[in-house]
C-alpha cells in the first residue's frame, strides 16, 4: 500500500501513517511518501510499537520514502 502525505502539516504525516498501519494486512507493506522531517523521527518508533520495521530512503530534495514491513 502506498501513502502520499507530502505537503501535510504536522502531525498529519505521523497520524495518517499510524492509521494506515493499523488497517494493513499482515503480509502487506506500507510505503509512505513524506516531506516532513519530524516524521522521520516519530514514525519508526510508532511503527515499532505496532511490530513494523522502518527503512527510510531519500527520494528527492526533502522527500523521503519510509517503507514499513512486519518485523
Amino acid at each position, binding site marked *: 500500500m502506498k501513502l502520499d502525505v507530502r505537503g501535510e502539516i*504536522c502531525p498529519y504525516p505521523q497520524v495518517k501513517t499510524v492509521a494506515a498501519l493499523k488497517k494493513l494486512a499482515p503480509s502487506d507493506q506500507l510505503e509512505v511518501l513524506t516531506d516532513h522531517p519530524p516524521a522521520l523521527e516519530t514514525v519508526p518508533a510508532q511503527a515499532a510499537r505496532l511490530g513494523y520495521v522502518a527503512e527510510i530512503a531519500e527520494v528527492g530534495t526533502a522527500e523521503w520514502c519510509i517503507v514499513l514491513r512486519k518485523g
Partner: protein
Amino acid sequence: MSTPDVAQRSVRSSAASRARSFNIARGVAAAAAAFVILVGTASIDRLLAVFWLFGLAFGFVLQRSRFCFASAFRDLFLLGDTRVMKGIIAGLAVATAGFAVLMARLLPEVGFGSLPPGATVLPLGIHTLVGGVLFGIGMVLAGGCTSGSLYRVGEGYVGSMVALLGIMLGLEISSHTWNWWWESHISHAPRIWFPEQLGYLGGTLLTFGALLLCFLAVSWWEFRTSIMLPPKRDEVHAASSLGEHLRALGHTVFVKGWPVVVGGVALATLNVYLYTYRHPWGVVAGLGIWADKFASAFNLGAGELLGRSSLAGCAFEPDTASALGHMPLLNLGVIAGAFIAASLASEFKLRVPKQPLRYVQSIGGGVLMGYSAGLALGCTVGAFFSAIPSLALNGWVFAGALAVGAYIGVKVLNRIP
C-alpha cells in the same frame, strides 16, 4: 539488471547530487549574507548584532533537532510519545542552572521584593490559565507553536507562514482587549518568584525536583500507553581515514537530524548566554511589534496599553520600538538560521498543503496562539522555556495549562480528517 535500468539509476543519482550541491551552495550563500548582516548591524548597534546572531543560532538548532514545543505536549496525548518532552525537560534543567547563577549575580540580595532585571517573572492569575489552555489548543491545530512556526517558515512550510500571520493577527486582537484584562485581572495579579522565599539554592533545588518529577511522570505515561522502546543505537563504523571521519562528522551535524535532547540542551545554553546581554529568549515581543506597526499603518492600532511598561518578559516594547529592533531581529534570525540549516541539509522545500481545511487550521490555530500569548505575556518560549528557568511559578502554571490545552487540541484534531 538491464542496461537501461542502470542508466536510469545513474541519471537519477547524478540529478540528486546536483540538487544536493545546489542546496549546499545556497546554504553557504545564505550564511555569507547572514554574516554580512551581522557585521552591518554591529556597526549600528551591538545589541542588534547580538540578537541577530542568537536568532541564527536558535533557528539553526531548532531546524537540526526538529524541536517543537507543540509536538512535545501534543505527542503525549496523540501518540503516547514522550521523546520531545524529555528533550524539553533536559533543556529546562540546563537553563535553570544557568539562569540561577546569572540572576544571583544580577540580584545578590533577595527577599526585599525586587526581581532580577530581565527575568521572566510575570503576573500570575486567571489570564495565565486561560492563555495557556488556548495556546495549547491553538498550537496543536496549527501544527506548531511560535518558535516552531518561525523555523518552519525558514524550511519552506507554507502552513507555518499562514500560522505566523494568524499569530500576529491574534496578538493585535489581544491588544484591543488588553485594557480590560489588565484592569480586571492582570494589574492585581501577584508575581511569585521562588528565591524570594527560598533563596537561590532553594528555588533551584525546588525547580530541579519538579523537573525530575515531570521526567518520572512522563516516563510512567509512556510505559502506561505503549511499549517502551530502548533508545536506538546507531551502528559504529571505524573510519579508514581522517577525511572519512570528518565527512561523517559533517554529515551528523549538517545533514542528519539531531537527537532532541541535544537540541534542548543547545537551546537552553544559548538562552543562558543570551540572557547575559539583556534578557532571555522570547518570540512574541518581536511579532507583537510587527503586528502593531501593520495595524497602525491602517489606523487600527490598539492605542495606549495600560501597565505594559511595568512588565518584563514578552510584554510590548514601547511604541518607539523599531520594526527591526532587537526582538524582531531575533525572530528574523530564527527564520534565516533555519533556512541556512535546511539548505545545507537539502531539507528546504516549499511545502504547500493541499486541503483548504489545513489553511483554516493554521490561521485559526495561529489566531488562538496570538491572542493567548498576549494574555499570558508570552508563548511556549517566553512564558515557559524562559520562565521556568527564571524560577518563576508562572512558568509552571502556564505549562500545566499548555498540557490541558494540548489535550483538548488533540481531541479536536482527532475529529478533523
